[in-house]
């Protein structure tokens, strides 16, 4: 029993999970029971996949020991590119493909520049953040493209899949991608390489892991997920604006960190990223539901980020210090 406890205490996503529980209970009480109603859950679930997909990509990349500040801009660039192509006569699916391919290329560039010139990815992706944002405006030509509802199969991404209108298709997309990523990270050799590369680069290199390729792949996955998430949001709102996803890059980092991902690389999990993104989403919604002044939202996210990291460090220390009888021979 103590052994299970010890292992659990050392799990990096534990602090986030506890916070999530506390917040849910708190908001449920403060909002007079409205928070956990089906109607409100629908609101939370409808928006969650968009931010959470970005957070998952950022989490994977951070485990690999790198950063991506350009996800917010890519979040806007992908739907904009897709919509502009569509309006100019390219069929929907090829336009989506080109949009995602562009994201993959941006991810590749982020990774390649970072590794080739040995510069911090913070800098590379900071530059890319501005460039991609600017490209979004350039591509739109200043006038956001208009797509009439029904012209594109947006139901495939944002339509309600049940008759009562509770779950959107985006939730399924998100769930499938999250499971896939989680499996990739914990059950495949690629996941092992990602963790080793982020955990201790010299050892990974000495053991013959193609660390450059591993990192570039993670950059690409991160960018493609951000672009895909942007497309879901644009299709849900049926509006393609160059200002989409502003500030999203730092919220994604906050989500990853709240979920137990280390800035140093190596430590973290996809589940943690999901928990972090859910917490941010719940804060946003729960504060409104409990009639707290929404101006405090950013403050709350900031405080939570710090609290989660401090809590995590404390829990892990307690876990490590916990004495367990060992069957050492």
């Amino acid at each position, binding site marked *: 029993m103590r052994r299970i406890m010890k292992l659990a205490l050392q799990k990096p996503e534990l602090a986030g999970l506890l916070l999530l529980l506390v917040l849910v209970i708190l908001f449920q009480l403060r909002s007079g029971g409205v928070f956990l109603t089906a109607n409100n859950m629908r609101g939370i679930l409808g928006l969650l996949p968009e931010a959470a997909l970005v957070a998952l990509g950022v989490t994977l990349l951070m485990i690999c020991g790198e950063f991506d500040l350009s996800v917010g801009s890519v979040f806007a660039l992908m739907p904009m590119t897709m919509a502009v192509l569509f309006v100019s006569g390219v069929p929907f699916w090829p336009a989506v493909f080109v949009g995602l391919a562009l994201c993959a290329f941006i991810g590749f560039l982020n990774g390649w520049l970072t590794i080739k010139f040995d510069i911090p990815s913070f800098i590379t992706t900071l530059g890319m953040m501005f460039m991609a944002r600017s490209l979004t405006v350039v591509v739109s030509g200043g006038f956001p493209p208009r797509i009439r509802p029904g012209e594109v199969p947006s139901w495939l991404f944002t339509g309600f899949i049940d008759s009562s209108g509770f779950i959107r298709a985006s939730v399924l997309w998100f769930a499938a991608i999250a499971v896939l990523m989680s499996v990739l990270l914990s*059950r*495949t*050799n*690629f*996941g*092992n*390489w990602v*963790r*080793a590369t982020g*955990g*201790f680069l*010299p*050892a*990974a*290199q*000495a*053991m*013959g*892991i193609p660390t450059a390729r591993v990192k570039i792949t993670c950059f690409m996955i991160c960018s493609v997920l951000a672009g895909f998430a942007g497309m879901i949001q644009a299709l849900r709102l049926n509006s393609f604006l160059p200002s989409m996803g502003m500030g999203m890059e730092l919220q994604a980092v906050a989500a990853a960190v709240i979920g137990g991902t280390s800035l140093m690389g*190596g*430590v973290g999990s996809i589940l943690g990223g999901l928990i972090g993104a859910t917490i941010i989403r719940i804060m946003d919604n729960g504060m409104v539901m409990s009639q707290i002044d929404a101006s405090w939202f950013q403050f709350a996210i900031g405080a939570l980020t710090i609290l989660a990291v401090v809590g995590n460090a404390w829990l892990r220390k307690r876990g*490590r210090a916990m004495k367990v009888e*060992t*069957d*050492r*021979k």
Partner: protein
Amino acid sequence: MTDPIIQVKNLHKWYSGVHALKGVSLDIQRGQALGLVGDNGAGKSTLINILSGLHQPDQGEILMDGRPITIRNPKDAMGLGIETIYQYNSMVPIMSIARNLFIGREPLKFSVAGIGWLDLNRMREESVKAIADVDLHLRSPDALVGELSGGQRQGVAIARAMHFKSKVMILDEPTNHLSVKETNKVIGFVRSLREQGVTAIFISHNMHHVFACCDRVVAMALGQVVLDKPIGQTSIEEVQDIL
């Protein structure tokens, strides 16, 4: 009688304008433990980095079993059976023992284009056995390497090299930062390699460690080999005089 497993001939290496290796030639005898000593900057690490595939020589050749070989990267070296245990640990502290043992060489249940499903059970079972084989007893293959002592980590690194049936094991200052007891354990490991027919290259600053477990001592200074004698024909004093 000589039966070299690796022969190094006239090896040269420049590092950003510095002539780090100045024509090093060396025969490494099969099944022996060779002690490589020398001051910082003598060229030991350069030589080792070339043999383990981290760097390429600018000139000269390397032969294994009499045939010329090129070692372009660590993977090549491991493929040839040359395994290196580095001073700064070749382990990832935040990963489990089982995962560390198989980094880069994970057993897979199935795979597509090199990416596949880890055989976690096999990794755990084989790592328990591999560690027991080097006479090390650890709690569980799921323990994080970061929780082990320095000596235990070197033990796991050696277990990994043994598990992958390496023919030549390079130990780059494995006794640094270890307690006396743990140092003795590592020296015991090196001795036991000989019994298992594994060739060892043992790099150390400490002459006593080298003389305690090696068959031959090679001293380097300023990028050249300055002494190459069987342990029985030399002494700590002679080596120290030359250096």
